[in-house]
């Protein structure tokens, strides 16, 4: 209570402070007279300092995320949960998507490409953590086209400057073999077809390593070769009951898709096994074929390094023998005529199957070597050379007449 103040109406000294909303007033408690009024105040200090506040700052406009980005971030998390990835994968994929969204090439892309970006971020995360996930699986989940996916994937890896390791084949073998329904008896799976998972997995891994050493994996899709190796491993563990089962039926029983090239990969793998079997003394007398070699896959895999080296050594010796003859012939011709170039060196025919399959069956291509011309680009061009590219006036008139006739024929309606 301030000292010395009195009410101007009744002279009472009972003055109290009373707040009228945000305004503090000095009021006489006896007669209600308002002695003094206070100043208006606000809780916003900027306004007190007479500074302007912009609309975007007051409303948090810049903090908003666009609808498209919100939806795609949700899709990244949903895709990670569908694939049952660890939580760290999810956070990494989200951060990659946020980085990619800052790029102008990605932000201005179509919706189809933005959906593919979601899959690309998840795939990059799985690759960096050696999680076996193929591009085909991602495209299947997103209903995306592989061509769009591949171009977008290359673009993102390049723009973000990421170093993405290659697909780990052993992890993919383990993951893909686990998806086969071969390890428990069921009404659709006879008991003689059920197999132990660990034995199956180890034999399949050995077969895939053998295929990798013999050029069957390089430059190919991995799933067909894994399917063929799994089928061979499964057959070889109990050949008496399973040799009658075909690859298509095996895939149907195991409830997996049959990749189209898997049959070709199976034949190539069997051919490699036959070539290895010819190096073993106790198998040479048996005259094996592609059906009976399956019974001896265990022996072949046990000694596979030695067998592959022996087969390759034979190839090397023959290649070196054939290689000397063309060189000698070339040297003689070079001595005789110094201006004559060395003959174009062709690859000598190599035996067996330890070359890449695309070299064993090269596409037939008649590539005629053009003669060495002395064209400099600045020769004179005569008029007679140009006349062959122009029509004569008579030909022009005939062409116009033919065009008019064809146009008239098309414009005449058919009689009903």
């Amino acid at each position, binding site marked *: 209570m301030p000292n010395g103040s009195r009410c101007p109406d009744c002279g009472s000294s009972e003055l109290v402070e009373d707040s009228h909303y945000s305004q503090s007033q000095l009021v006489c408690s006896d007669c209600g007279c308002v002695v003094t009024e206070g100043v208006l105040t606000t809780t916003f200090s900027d306004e007190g300092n007479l500074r302007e506040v912009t609309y975007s700052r007051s409303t948090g406009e810049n903090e908003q995320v666009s609808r498209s980005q919100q939806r795609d971030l949700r899709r990244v998390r949903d895709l990670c949960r569908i694939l049952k990835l660890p939580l760290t994968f999810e956070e990494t994929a989200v951060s990659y998507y946020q980085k990619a969204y800052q790029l102008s090439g990605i932000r201005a892309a179509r919706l189809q490409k933005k959906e593919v970006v979601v899959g690309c971020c998840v795939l990059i995360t799985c690759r960096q953590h050696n999680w076996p996930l*193929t*591009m*085909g699986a991602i495209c299947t989940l997103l209903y995306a086209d*592989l061509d769009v996916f*591949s171009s977008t*994937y*290359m673009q993102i*890896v390049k723009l973000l400057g990421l*170093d993405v390791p*290659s*697909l780990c084949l052993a992890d993919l073998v383990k993951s893909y073999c686990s998806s086969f329904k071969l390890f428990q008896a069921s009404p659709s799976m006879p008991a003689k077809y059920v197999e132990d998972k660990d034995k199956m997995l180890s034999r399949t891994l050995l077969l895939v390593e053998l295929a990798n*050493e013999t*050029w069957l*994996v*390089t*430059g*190919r*899709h*991995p799933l067909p070769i894994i399917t063929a190796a799994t089928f061979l491993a499964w057959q070889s563990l109990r050949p008496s009951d399973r040799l009658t089962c075909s690859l298509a039926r095996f895939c149907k029983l195991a409830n997996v898709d049959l990749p189209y090239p898997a049959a070709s990969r199976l034949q190539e793998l069997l051919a490699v096994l036959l070539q290895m079997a010819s190096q073993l003394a106790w198998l040479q007398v048996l005259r094996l074929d592609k059906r009976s070699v399956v019974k001896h896959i265990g022996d072949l895999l046990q000694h596979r390094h030695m067998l*592959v*080296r022996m087969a*390759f050594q034979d*190839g*090397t010796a023959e*290649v*070196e023998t054939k290689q000397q003859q063309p060189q000698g012939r070339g040297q003689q011709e070079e001595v005789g005529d110094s201006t004559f*170039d*060395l003959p*174009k*060196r062709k*690859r000598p025919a190599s035996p067996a199957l*330890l*070359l*890449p399959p*695309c*070299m064993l069956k090269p596409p037939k291509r008649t590539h005629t070597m*053009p003669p*060495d*011309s002395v*064209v*400099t*680009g*600045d*020769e004179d*061009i005569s*008029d007679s*050379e*140009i*006349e*062959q*590219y*122009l*029509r004569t006036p008579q*030909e*022009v008139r005939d*062409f*116009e007449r033919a065009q008019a006739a064809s146009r008239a024929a098309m414009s005449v309606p058919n009689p009903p």
Partner: protein
Amino acid sequence: MDADSDVALDILITNVVCVFRTRCHLNLRKIALEGANVIYKRDVGKVLMKLRKPRITATIWSSGKIICTGATSEEEAKFGARRLARSLQKLGFQVIFTDFKVVNVLAVCNMPFEIRLPEFTKNNRPHASYEPELHPAVCYRIKSLRATLQIFSTGSITVTGNLDLMHTCSELHHSLLMDAALSCVGSRSSSSGPNVKAVATAVEQIYPFVFESRKEIL
């Protein structure tokens, strides 16, 4: 199988793409009517004209820009372009042959050994990228030469790119590369020219890395 270090590699130029301008507007209907061996793509507004010798396909736009593809050397591309310009002059257009430029070269080279693509990719990151699910070859980029190499497991290498800058701005670099590369392998090109030298330089630059990843079974 070991490769001799002094073996000669054949580099075969399979395609050269060049452009030039006529500096006058071209009436496509007139070209389609009076020119032989022409295809008028009315919906996209261009005319395709094929020359017999040299074997070139030209894309003619009404603005006067012409793209020639299919030549097997730069001299052949220029000769074909000049022949095309002469044909258009005969048709009555005021053609001025300007701005001739080679924009792309495609070359093929075969190594005498197979290449282990996974090892090559691992040793030459980040220039090399190998996606077997997308393409059977390794894509290797040489930024200084603006070249892109497709390296297959058979040893075949395809060189693509706009290789024209090599001749103008990297003479010293080119000389150093030639001196270093000639010590390990000699190369012979089917034709001469600045772009072909750049192609040879690209092949020589990639050869040591490819040689390290060649096929060997121990």
